[in-house]
Structures are given as C-alpha cells and as structure tokens.
C-alpha cells in the first residue's frame, strides 16, 4: 500500500503543481487553460533538444522555462486582448484551440514518437520506513509544496500579488485604480506556463512520454482543480497528490492495474456530482 502511494508520488506531485497553476490562472484571469501541460511540454522538449545539442542541462532547463513562459504569455495576451468579455466556457474553447495549435507545433518541431528524457537529478534513492524513495520523488514533492506555498505567500505579501488578488475579485475596479490588468494577466499566464514546464521536466524522465501524452497530463490536473472548484489551491494540490497515489496503488492491484488511469477521474466525477447536488441554478441572476 505505502510503496504504491510512494510510487505515485512523482506523478501526484506533478498533477498537484499543474492543478495549482490551473486554479491560480482561473482565479486570477477566469480562464481554465486546457493547454497548460502542452505549453509546459513545449519548454520541456526544447530543454531536451538543447541538451541533445550539447548545452549544459541547467542552462537548457532555464531556456525551457523561458520558452514555456513566453508562449503562455503570448496566449495570455491573446486571451486578454480578444476574449475579455466572453464567458468562461468560450474561453475554455479558446484554450482547446490553443492546445491543438501547440500540439501541431510540437509535432512539427519534435516529432510524435516517445523519446528518452534524461533526468535533471542524479539517480539516488533512500530507504524511508522500509520503502525505497528516489531523490526525484523528494524533489517533485518539494516542488509541489513550494509552488503551492510560494504562490500563496506571493499573493499575500507582495505588491504584485496583492494586485492579482484584487484582480481576481474586481478586475474593473482595479483598472479604475490605474492598474493595467492586461499586463497583470500576461504575467500570471507566463508564470503558470513556466511552472508547467518545470512540472514536465520532473515527470518526463519517469514516463518518457510522447508530446501528446505529455499535453494530456493536464487531464488529471484539471480533475484535481475541479475538486477545488477551480478556486481552492489546497484542495487542488491535495487532489493532485491523491490522484497520483490512487494510480500508484492501482498499479499494485492486478485486476485494476490496466484501468488505474480511469479510476481517479470516475471518483472525481462522483465527488463533483455530490458537491453540486444543491446547485440548482446557473450564474447568479
């Protein structure tokens, strides 16, 4: 059981990081970004391409984050420029469009076959409570905690964070106070894009996924974000970790192991149906 949980911890941490990004972006700009993981994948693949070309890993990783951050920022600019008024559902469709475009771009640049990704970290592991835990697991979990805590602290204590909180409550009022909300939302987009690239760099060595498989890692993250109603960072992070753990446990149960990817989502849907059982009406009057 415990080793199942531990084995799902890397995935869970990555889902948690992505889920926190989804929630942050939705809270601050009102966009559910289906293309989040794809944006991150672009950076991760760029990093591995540069490493393949002989660049030192750290420099390549930084450039990867930069690539994802820029692409996400561009997407954010497009959303803020043309889709300030439409509903959240329309904006979601726009991010589906974004995902398709990034996938095409990814296929063009990097091909669509799985490739072996070198780990950013040395292959070291420790034994904790009788279970072997790799360094990568520690780092991934640490990153998840760092992202959730860090973003929360940032929002509470820095001026830009306070402005972002203000934007999530009343964007128009913030604009009336002389703040350019468009610039602010581009910053949020870039930040989530770069963090998504980090998440992809963490998970890639464990799965060696195709570009498409990487892009669809957003699905469990969206499920986790859904649990937190796209507004609660902590529920989303916990949900991401739980989904990873369930996958890990599922892998140890024979009859379940083939279907483990599907189980968490079914549970999320059931939880959601339960949570929403009293929500009779759509948006307030």
């Amino acid at each position, binding site marked *: 059981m415990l080793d199942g949980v531990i084995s799902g911890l890397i995935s869970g941490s990555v889902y948690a990081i992505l889920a926190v990004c989804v929630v942050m972006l939705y809270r601050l700009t009102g966009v559910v970004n289906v293309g989040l993981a794809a944006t991150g994948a672009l950076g991760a693949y760029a990093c591995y391409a540069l490493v393949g070309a002989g660049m030192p890993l750290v420099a390549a990783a930084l450039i990867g984050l930069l690539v994802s951050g820029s692409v996400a920022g561009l997407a954010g600019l497009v959303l803020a420029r043309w889709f300030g008024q439409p509903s959240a559902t329309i904006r979601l469709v726009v991010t589906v469009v974004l995902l398709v475009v990034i996938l095409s771009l990814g296929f063009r640049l990097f091909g669509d076959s799985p490739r072996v990704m070198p780990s950013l970290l040395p292959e070291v592991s420790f034994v904790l409570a009788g279970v072997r835990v790799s360094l990568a697991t520690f780092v991934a979990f640490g990153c998840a905690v760092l992202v959730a805590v860090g973003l929360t602290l940032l929002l509470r204590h820095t001026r830009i964070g306070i402005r972002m909180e203000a934007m999530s409550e009343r964007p128009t009022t*913030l604009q009336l106070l002389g703040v350019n909300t468009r610039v602010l939302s581009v910053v949020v987009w870039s930040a989530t894009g770069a963090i998504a690239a980090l998440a992809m760099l963490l998970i890639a060595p464990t799965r060696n996924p195709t570009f498409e498989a990487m892009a669809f890692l957003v699905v469990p993250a969206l499920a986790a974000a859904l649990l937190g109603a796209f507004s609660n960072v902590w529920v989303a992070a916990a949900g991401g970790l739980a989904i990873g753990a369930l996958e890990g446990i599922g892998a140890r149960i024979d009859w379940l192991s083939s279907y483990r990817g599907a189980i968490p989502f079914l549970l999320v849907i059931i939880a959601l149906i339960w949570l929403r059982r009293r929500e009779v009406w759509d948006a307030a009057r």
Partner: protein
Amino acid sequence: MTLSATGLTVRRGGLTICRDIDLVVPVGEITVLLGANGAGKSTLLDGLSGVLPVAAGAIHLDGHSLTRLPPHRRAARGLAYVEQGRTVFERLTVRQNLAVVDRSRRTLDRSFELFPRLAEKRDIRAGLLSGGEQQMLVIARALATDPRVLLVDELSLGLAPRVVRTLMEALVGLAATGVGVLLVEQYAQLALEVGTTAHVMRQGRIVRSAACATLLADRDALLSSHYFGSPIG
C-alpha cells in the same frame, strides 16, 4: 481645469442609456447629479470613466481627450471613480486595499487622517468592515491615486444618514483642496446641501441644471416632476 463631456452617448447591453449629455465638472467644487433609479446616472459615470465605451461624443480632462483611453489610462490622467456598492477588495485588509494603489507611508497617513476609523482597523479584512467603513475605504483608495476629479456613485446607498454626513463632509474637505467631485445621488437632500451645481437626469438625458440652493428651495417641484412622474395638470 475641468472634466467635461460633450454630446456623450453611452450604450449598455444594446440599449442607449445616456443620450447626448453635456456636462462640466469644475475642480474645487461638488457637482451633483440627481435622478430616479434607472435614469442613467451610473451608466453616465461608467462612460466617463471608461468602464463602458463611448458610443458618441467626447470627454476631456484638463484639455486632454479621454474619449478613447482605457480606464487605467484615464485614472493615470487624474480621473478616479468610486463605483456603486462599496467595491472594496473583500479578501484584502484595509492596508492592502490601499497598497493596491500605493504602498507609501504618505498615502496611509493621509487616508487615516481623513478617516481615523480606518486606522484602527488597518489589518482587518475589508469584507468584515461595516458598510460605512467600507465606503470610507473606497473613497480613501480612490484618493490614493491623487485624482483631479472624483466621480462618486450612490455614496449613501444602504448607509445610515449619520454616516453619510461624515462622508459628505470628507468630500467637502476634498473639494476645498481643489479636487472636482461629481456626486451621483438618488437621495437628493444631503447632496444638494453640499453641492454647488446640480443636474437632474431623466430617461438618459439631463433635463434640468440649476444651482443646488435653487433646487433645494424648489423641492416639491423637483420631486413631482423628476421622481414621481406626477400627471400633467
């Protein structure tokens, strides 16, 4: 040195709510805009501040055109807007609400000097303040942008008359420092007592402009014609 609108028409949701408005807000005094609910006062302010696009006409502040600028650029030019309904950032504390605009010591001191009540609650979340305190915070926050002209929508909404008086006095003091105030009110009495000039809106147009004192003396006529739509004859 004024805010002026000429031939201003503003639409909201496909409906023309304000038609062909000419309005001047001189600095250093309070201009009052009256009218029943639904007369188009808030829409006019939304048009002036840039929340809604201008369908026709022009807006100038101190000789600069604001007509095509987005709200944050209008704010940078010295236009501040206190929207209806006490738009504090509820999850932020009093101090953070002010810090959204300006984190300097000077701003904090000035705000707390104007409204000492806020100083006591500086680390309380704005959502937990009373209605009057929230309105004070919103005004203090607007003033932190150092405006030339301040637009205030429904200052008195849902507040006890005593609190409204405190706020009105603050606005009088503000006008004395050379800021122009455009005060929109559904409730006429208090506004007319502090204002210099008043305009009355009905169905999207300014139907009467006069000195506040004149309107105050002529209260009954104001009531019947503009609020209660009494029958002819």
